[in-house]
């Protein structure tokens, strides 16, 4: 039994039953398939997280974000005072996370590519883009750069989904995706 030492002194040489052998082979092949699927997706899939990242001081990242916001600000969001920024299609866009906001609001064009730069000013935050449902971790001191291509117009929320302090649940940002003709 499982609670006592094996009955045979040498148990390693016991033959395998067919059932066990078959299951082991199936399970092993399934593992290879799952591994292969991840690798395969890197070559053919459209959703792969970039490996591009840099160390950056929060002040420097904030400067760049502010410079861009000033240059491409198109309006303010209601009476919140938060700028809505619309950088040209294909360009670099910056969004910073800090307790308790994602700043600024971005306006992007559908089916255009952008290089999105993300970083945090203080603690870790979660960048959760809804309703498309993309979730990224944002660290202070690190800048993540990824290429995104919005595939549907609409109003997207950026919800913080890493606990970052008492008002974590109020930390929300926004991204608008509009048709390119507009």
């Amino acid at each position, binding site marked *: 039994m499982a*609670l006592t030492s094996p009955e045979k002194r040498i148990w390693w040489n016991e033959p395998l039953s*067919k059932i066990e052998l078959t299951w082991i082979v199936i*399970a092993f092949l399934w593992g290879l398939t799952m*591994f292969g699927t991840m*690798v395969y997706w890197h070559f053919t*899939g459209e959703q792969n997280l970039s490996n591009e990242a*840099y160390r950056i001081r929060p002040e420097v990242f904030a400067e760049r974000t502010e410079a861009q916001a000033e240059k491409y600000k198109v309006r303010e969001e209601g009476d919140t005072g938060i700028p809505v920024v619309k950088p040209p299609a294909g360009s670099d866009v910056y969004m910073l996370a800090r307790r308790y906001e994602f700043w600024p609001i971005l306006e992007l064009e559908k089916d255009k590519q952008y290089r999105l730069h993300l970083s945090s000013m203080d603690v870790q935050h979660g960048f959760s883009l809804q309703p498309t449902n993309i979730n990224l971790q944002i660290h202070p001191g690190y800048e993540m750069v990824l290429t995104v291509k919005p595939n549907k117009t609409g109003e997207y929320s950026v919800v913080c*989904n890493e606990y970052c302090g008492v008002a974590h649940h109020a930390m*929300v940002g926004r991204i608008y995706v509009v048709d390119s003709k507009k």
Partner: protein
Amino acid sequence: MAKDFKFRTCPETGLKVHSQADALIKANAVVAVVFLAIGGLFGLLVALTRWPAVHMLDAELFYLALTAHGADVLVFWIIFFEVAVLYFASAILLNARIVLPKIAWLGFILMLVGALMANVAVLQGESSVMFTSYVPMKAAPHFYLGLILFAVGALLAVGIFFGTILTAKKEKTYEGSLPLVTFGALTAAIIAVYTILSGAIILVPTFLWSLDLIPHIDSLTYKLIWWGFGHSSQQINVATHVSIWYATAALLLGAKPLSEKVSRGAFLLYILFLQLASAHHLLVEPGVSSSWKIFNTSYALYLAVLGSLIHGLSVPGAIEAAQRKRGFNKGVFEWLRKAPWGNPAFSSMFLSLVLFGFLGGISGVTMGNEQINLIIHNTIYVPGHFHATVVAGTTLAFMGITYLVVPLIFQREIVMKGLARWQPYLFGLGAAGISLFMMGAGTIGIARRHWDITFSDAPLTVDVPGTAFMMMGLNGVFAIMATIGGAIYVVVVVASILFGAKRDEAACKANPVVTAGGGEAVASYGAEEEHPNLSGTIVLVTLLFVTFVLYYYVNWKFLSEVWPLS
């Protein structure tokens, strides 16, 4: 050799039990149950707060309760219980003495002091940082110190385990190889060493940083090493509860592993690869390469998943073979229908096996894919997944074995048997419910660790789908069910220990908890002699496999619909 050590002989199993092993198991198990009770209560408060219609605690208390819940159940309940399992699987199963019992007690005291200290820190309110305590968010120094003391105590316990099995070998208290269950416990102990080392490497500097003795802790490095601790400790759980499955099947049904080689080989895969899965938590972090992510998150080509799938066949297979030998041989499933479903030790074990495999295992491997993690990271799907593994899987397995530990180690009858009989079903169903509904809400993007999905305090509005509200409500309902199941467990166990009738030799004979004849009933069906009929198990694993493949590719489909990114 055994100088003046006091031993008793267990009237049911004939095992020689060292009095120190008895005492250490009792102490660790009792403290474990106390932390489960405290932590479970916090869990209920958290679930009721996340039920939008109830929204019980205010924000600050919610984050405090969530921190306490994670630490008390995930760390303290589980690890105290695991220490008890380590002493059981070493000293008791090997007929051996605990080496250096004083050190074992020192470990116990350190763990207890550490756990209390961390709880005090959290309840004081300055340490609501979640049990992960990601830097640069800072907790009070005694929060980290508590965790460090706890870890040192646990390391001592693991050391005693190694000392005990090595001494047992030297003193020839057993012959040949370790019993399979002890080998599983050894697997857990090995993973525990890596776990605790990782914890020490990162928590000691973090403690110094909280005292302003170190200027800076890098957040990415912290997270990487912390999960070497945080996730590996989940792997200790897996190795431990798989061992408990084997142990329960052996004690109750006389089940014997189909093949020592296969089961031990599967544990070896755990030892080699299971800990790599710590990478699951870093799949959407900046700057860590896809090669590292894919290799580690897949446990090197899914070799540890292979180990689990093997146990997934071996455990029910052993039960089926044993039951068929005992005459339940009709059709495909008579062996399962005629299993002792009224015995909470068995029902816990089997529910744990099924729920862990179907809910926890499948969801875990799926969300652990590098790219699929993009649609799941930090959503409430994550707690959904691990309530299937660590609550429906580990906790339920631990509850089940308690129904054997109380009569065999505490030597008390279980009281309130009628309630105890229903306990695993209530708790199992509740745990399955919270897992499923949290996974469901996570699939539509609801965040974990989040006080308010209406975003009423936020400057911008967020459109949250109505189904999310419904699922978080149902989560609350099942949380109540799980809490009732958990409360019954605590009450039955405590009452049995305090008021249960003493089990003397006569009582053991009259009312045995261990199947008479155990091992003999199914003595050697080594593969060369006869092939056991495993048709029921084949149906079960086929079902598991088909569910797995379908669910896996459904999630790739979901992924393929989100914004292209690279």
